[in-house]
């Protein structure tokens, strides 16, 4: 993506990572509460969320090509 400024690009990448981790943590916490398996849900989903955040960043940075461009 051709963002016009480096600042916007940097900001985009950082929010992508944070969003992934936050979603993982939130989902893990909810699953813990519903199933009463604390702290395993949080541990597993935090790691999955981190991986998802890294994937987001790599997609946004164009390291991994976007799905839609693969075909």
């Amino acid at each position, binding site marked *: *993506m051709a*963002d*016009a*400024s480096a*600042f*916007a690009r940097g*900001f*985009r990448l950082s*929010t*992508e990572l*944070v*969003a*992934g981790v*936050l*979603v*993982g943590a939130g*989902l893990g916490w909810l699953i813990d509460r519903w199933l009463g398996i604390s702290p395993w849900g949080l541990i597993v*989903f935090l790691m*999955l*969320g981190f*991986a*998802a*955040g890294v*994937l*987001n960043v790599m*997609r946004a940075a164009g390291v991994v090509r*976007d*799905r*839609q461009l*693969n*075909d």
Partner: protein
Amino acid sequence: MAADPIHQFRIVDLFPVAKIGSTEIYFTNSSLLMLVAVFGLTAFLVIGTARRSLVPSRLQSAAELSYEFVATTIRGTAGAEGMKFFPFVFTLFMFVLTLNMLGLIPYSFTVTSHIIITAALAIMVFLTVLIYGLMRHGLHFFNLFVPKGVPIYILPLIVGIEILSFISRPISHSVRLFANMLAGHITLQVFAGFIVLLGAGLGAVGWIGGILPFAMIVILFALETLVAFLQAYVFAILTCIYLNDAIHPGH
């Protein structure tokens, strides 16, 4: 003291419009700015396209320019089929752009600096992608989460990561716009506060020294104008990328 940098984001109740349960619903300065944006945009487009002369007036070329800009963005990211979402993306882009720009007017209010607004817009985009994708492709839409050519033994892990990545979209989508507008306006206000502090603290010398932060405000204001446009553009282009997933999932 005019130096409180958060004061500018305060929601002011103007008059009550409805009452749900024990909660009064107020018409606020935020609603006022949104109404101004909607009416201003409608007037701009209606008047701009009213004459449709071959040699366009200034207003008409501005309207045509904004159409062309959004149309090119959509075709570039979501393909020709994405054009069926043109009204949606165009409305989002122009609405966010206008609110960002209105927020730059001194003594005005920046609607997009409140996360509830940007989150509502991002969730709207998210639900549009989800509902349209499911309607159009049925359960094949979930192929989105299953990348091709992945060995079967790590597939469950990858699918989990893809799903989390998908769910995290509205968060990064909304936080980016909100945080940019919030941070920019706080920075401006802090530098403006320096002038007052210098002047009040050091008298004449302070007022002369205040030229430095003032020069900084001029530069920052130019940057903020760029950011206001850029963030509206980024919001629109990400909307297109997400919509593209609804139109062509997986493969």
